[in-house]
């Protein structure tokens, strides 16, 4: 099997088995995911699949949305605010701490 570090997309799996396929560069927004996915020593790095055990599908969807948002607005000056439902923001704070982003 070819080293997955060359694949364009990676898969993020939530605790309730929702799978989100996002560009590798977007996933690299997170420092934690970058380390997991770019290394050949971790299983995530070999398969390109990263399981976030602690977070449900709703949260992981929002996280993936943020990755794409960050990727899109990387070099722009006036970044619009991302819309976050209030009921998710505390869990997202926890996720942000884990993902180090």
């Amino acid at each position: 099997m070819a080293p997955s570090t060359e694949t364009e997309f990676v898969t993020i799996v939530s605790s309730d088995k929702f799978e989100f396929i996002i560009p590798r560069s977007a996933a690299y927004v997170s420092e934690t995911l970058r380390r997991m996915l770019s290394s050949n020593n971790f299983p995530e790095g070999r398969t390109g699949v990263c399981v976030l055990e602690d977070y449900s599908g709703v949260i992981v969807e929002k996280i993936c949305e943020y990755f794409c948002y960050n990727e899109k607005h990387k070099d722009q000056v006036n970044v619009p605010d991302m819309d976050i439902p209030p009921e998710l923001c505390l869990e997202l704070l926890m996720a942000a701490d884990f993902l180090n982003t």
Partner: protein
Amino acid sequence: MDSEIPLPPSRRVRHRSPVKNPPATGAAVSFQRAQRLSRFDDHSSQPSSDPALFSSDDIPASGLENYHAPVSGAGRKRRYRGTWWGEQVLDPKRKRADFKDKRNVDSGVWMGSDESVAESLLPSEDGSAWGEDLRKSVLDPRKPGSSIPVSIETENMSSQTRIAFKSPEESDPHRFAREVIGDCLDKGHESIDLGEFNLGTIPPGLLLPLQHLTKLPSVKKAPVSENVFTSLQPFLSIYLPNNSLSTLHKDLFELSNLKVLSLRNNKLAEIPSTICKLTALEVLNLSVNQLTYLPWEVLKLIQQGELKHLTVRPNPFLTYDKAKIAERHYNNKEKENHEDLSPAVQSHTERWGPLHLATGTITYMDMEGNPMGDSPSSNRLTLTPGLASPVNDAPSLREVALRAVSKLPYLEQTTDEELAEYPALIVPLLQQAREVRAAGGKSCSVCQREYVIPRAEWMEWWDLIPFENGMKMPRCPNEMLRPLPFRRFACSLSCVPGSC
């Protein structure tokens, strides 16, 4: 005829029946009662204004066939008071003053038609009973004041709510301050003097009514000249000298028409950046406090706002000589010695405007707001800080989530005990969001975006001598510049000067 279809009689009966037998519903009863209690039932067919005076010729005399006939009665026309369709007033000698008397009793304008309105028209025994009447009739409009248990309940309720409205631990200074402000509001005084009130804090809601302060017109006597017509927009001044304020409530910065603010001789260690909302501010006195720096937003008030007179000394400001300076923007071209701060004054801006002298070193913060590289608590995962992650304009996920948190409506009510139930990782972040919210929000000094966690901060040194003397005189050519420190925050690493 037999074939003719008879009119449906049942329908007429149905149509008329509610008129014949009015159902005894509460609404109808109350409506009748309201009519009975009305103050205007004596001449209910008459309008409330004076009846109009009409005139006409006699009917036969005014016909077209008599057009050239000599007018009988020499121009006398028939006059009558009443409505145009000929209804006569019962008492035509009624004076206008009678109506005026009536008007003094009650304005006569009521926007409701149910029983509560009719009852509240009646004079009650005392004020509280009036409220009880109203409440009872609102709660139970069909049985006005019939059952005793209901009235007992409402009495208990009202006493409870009265206690709840009046906060029990309001201290004397706060109460006095509230009285002074109420007095100023009543009399339309535009200068609020709260000096030497021993105020430790500004309680929430104390200053907010001043938003609606209006001056009273100054016209007193009949001969009115042109110059008494002045704007009723108040020249709002708030004086809070010689108190022991250590924090400022965000209400103070909601008074967008505040012109003069004096906080002399308090215990302020920091001026919140929300001061930039006071765009009409002209005079600001911050002397004799514990300030070591000023918010950069004060400078913005000078450059874009109306601020003309800034009194900030004495304060324990950071000294320019010992500060770490990254870049000097202003130095005398003729003399190479940077420490000699005597300007070569030429242009108008150099004489009157603020002068940017230098920029201090920039401190970058990580995503949790800790200074990068210095603190051991940061860099838990990041082994190569700053270098691996490129400069990114987009806010971090923490920041995005915290902005959502800071917009939550109940954030201010959460106590520390409640916060302690959350996971320990996010408690400091939530506390910070709450502080930012209590301060009225922060916005990036470069891109104006709201933020919760600053990512960079630095000092700028500016000279404001013309503003310190109230724009009375410009900088003298040989005067020493007196740099003031202004602390500036940025919301992202790319807002830092030099990076873009």
